[in-house]
């Protein structure tokens, strides 16, 4: 068990910077997910922690030791790989005990540890099997047992569930959480699947283009994303973004306006900002009463409907799409999540409201969040005609 710290870690390949000035402080016993799109540098970050790659600059600490130049075997880590990486010519027991045998443990100790590790991941009666006689899930358990058996200070897991089918993945997710509770070891887990990150981790480290975007508990990343990237990456389906400008009375865009006091947020009229709102914070206007801080009514038209069973996703177009090019039409589109008993149909005129207390504003220049939720103002509850073209639709 140990704390893991990265200080100003940078990894440059010939002309690519894979990791750029990464600072991470992972607490003892914490389960942290490194999450980001493919090629964002999350795997390279993990490799520098494992010692499989040496950072170009910066230091890595595990526990109280600086391990930047230490070989992987001396770092007290164990790793689980995406392609599982069991040695195909060894049976389960030999695979699990490989590291122990290299370290010349006596055979009694090896047997005891292998037994314990295989009990934890429920591999009873499979120790003599060869890897190619096992299913994907069983093999992944062997790989985890191989990591457990050495009592590492830190577990590194590089997309360990990516090669499993969807159902098994969900199952293994809960098993990993159970394992973490049982072992209380620090776990660093790389994934590109934000759902995995949300469900399992104590904190999520969102990485993009080699830079750390935000490291916070899952719900903080969800509710208070630090910037546009995190807002768009965390949450499925992702947040609606509407580019626009600040006016004297609030926010205006091609499609709708939202009123607030710009001065209170340190904004001045003319600043270009992007407004973000999650699908579940967009409501049909008739539910206005149940919205904590409804915005002005936005006139729109329903486009595509995706029934998911427990909810329905409705794409509504807030601009007159006939006059718009594709990009603008996309910007004027809002995704709304409504209850499954709703009778909304396609190509239907509809009025929607946003929950002002759940609206996010982002600075267009830096991408940084300006605020999460607008403060209630005097106009709350009044219906103001918007200046959109949508009103002229029919």
């Amino acid at each position, binding site marked *: 068990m140990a704390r893991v710290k990265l200080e100003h870690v940078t990894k440059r390949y010939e002309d690519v910077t894979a990791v750029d000035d990464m600072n991470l402080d992972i607490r003892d016993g914490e389960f942290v997910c490194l999450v980001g799109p493919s090629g964002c540098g999350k795997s390279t970050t993990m490799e520098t922690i494992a010692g499989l790659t040496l950072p170009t600059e910066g230091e890595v600490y595990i526990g109280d030791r600086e391990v930047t130049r230490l070989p*992987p075997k001396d770092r007290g880590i164990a790793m689980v*790989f*995406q392609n599982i*990486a069991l*040695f195909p*010519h060894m049976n389960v027991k030999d695979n699990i005990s*490989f590291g122990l045998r290299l370290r010349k443990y006596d055979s009694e100790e090896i047997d005891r540890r292998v037994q314990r590790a295989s009990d934890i991941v429920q591999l009873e009666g499979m120790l003599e099997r060869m890897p190619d006689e096992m299913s994907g899930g069983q093999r992944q358990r062997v790989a985890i047992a191989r990591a457990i058996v*050495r009592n590492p200070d830190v577990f590194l897991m590089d997309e360990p569930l990516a090669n499993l089918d969807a159902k098994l993945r969900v199952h293994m997710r809960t098993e990993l959480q159970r394992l973490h509770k049982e072992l209380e070891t620090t776990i660093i887990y790389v994934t590109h699947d934000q759902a995995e990150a949300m469900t399992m981790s104590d904190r999520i480290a969102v990485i993009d283009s080699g830079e750390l975007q935000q490291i916070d508990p899952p719900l903080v990343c969800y509710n208070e994303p630090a910037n546009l990237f995190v807002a768009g990456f965390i949450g499925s389906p992702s947040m609606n973004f509407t580019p626009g400008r600040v006016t004297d009375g609030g926010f205006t865009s091609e499609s709708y306006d939202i009123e607030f006091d710009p001065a209170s947020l340190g904004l001045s009229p003319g600043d270009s900002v992007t407004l973000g709102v999650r699908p579940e914070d967009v409501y049909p206007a008739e539910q206005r009463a149940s919205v904590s801080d409804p915005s002005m009514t936005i006139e729109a038209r329903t486009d595509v409907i995706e029934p998911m069973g427990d909810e329905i996703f409705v794409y509504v177009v807030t601009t007159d799409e006939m006059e718009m090019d594709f990009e603008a039409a996309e910007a004027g589109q809002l995704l709304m999540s409504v209850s499954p008993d709703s009778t909304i149909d396609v190509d239907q005129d509809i009025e929607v409201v946003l929950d002002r207390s759940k609206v996010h504003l982002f600075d267009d220049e830096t991408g940084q969040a300006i605020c999460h939720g607008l403060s209630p103002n005097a106009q709350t509850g009044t219906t103001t005609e918007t200046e959109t073209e949508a009103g002229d639709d029919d």
Partner: protein
Amino acid sequence: MRNPIALLRRRWSDSDDVRTDGGTVDSGQSFWNRDSVRSAPFWLPPFLLVGLFVYGAILWNIVLSLTDFQGLGSPDYSNLDFENYLAALADPIDGLLSVLPFVNGGAVEARSPSWAQLSVEPIWNSAWNTVVLMVGFTVVCLALGLALAILVDHKIRYENTFRTIYLLPMSLSFVVTAKFWLYMYNVETGLINVVITSLGFGAVEIVQNPDLKLPAVAFALVWQFSGYAMIVYLAGLRAIPTSHFEAARIDGASTLRMYRRVVLPQLRTATVSALVVLTVFALKAFDFLFSMYSGYQPGPSADILATRMVREAYANQNWAYGSTIAVVLFVMALFIVTPYIYSQYQRGEL
């Protein structure tokens, strides 16, 4: 007028009128409709050609080896026996003894009287040379190929260039390699002797030196085929996921141990396939020796079964005895290839 295309079509296409007539099928119809019959134009010609010219020739050769066919004329098939085999394998003790002086560097001494009266000599000498060449060449070639593959696999610069350079000799014919190494081994102008004399030692006769003949042949063959072994091993190495190397390193394996315990066991298939190909090449290294020694007279210290076979048949006109040696070579090749094919069959790859 009968339309031949329509006739063929009717005959070769699945008949549409499937009848359930209690299991009795019109036999004429079903014969022409069988898959094997309908696909005959595709498999029958190669089947006949290979059958006649490969398997037929092998069988005929076996029959020939049982005759006493010698000199001009045609073979007499009335009196078939194993006399040639007995002669070929006669007196293993004496045969092996005849090998010994040459192993010690001498020429073959006078024959022992027990088989002196035979018209042919036993084949122990050339059989022994064949085995030595086969084992020596194959083992060195595999070891060198593995070493090269491991080096090239280290993501070195100019990897493709090195790979091409190592593989290039493989594309040469045996004749070119032999002539090339004749130059290299030349006593006065050969590169090897130039280096040796420039270091202050006396020039060494290589090609005609009974002690060095076989090693010289093996060396040239290694030069030609180690690139092939490298490519086979390189493919094997590339098939091992990077994470296996990483997992081994994290588990604490040193480089040597990682290769011995994780990598080498996974190269077994590569080793076996390279081994089979190289051994078979060594068995049929005839054209190499033929070119190097301008004929099939490499002398006893480099005489292998293949040169012996051709010499018996074409120089001595002992046709039947040449066939006998051919059968011995054939059986040796079978011994090498059969286990490989069988293991492939068991793994379901055939």
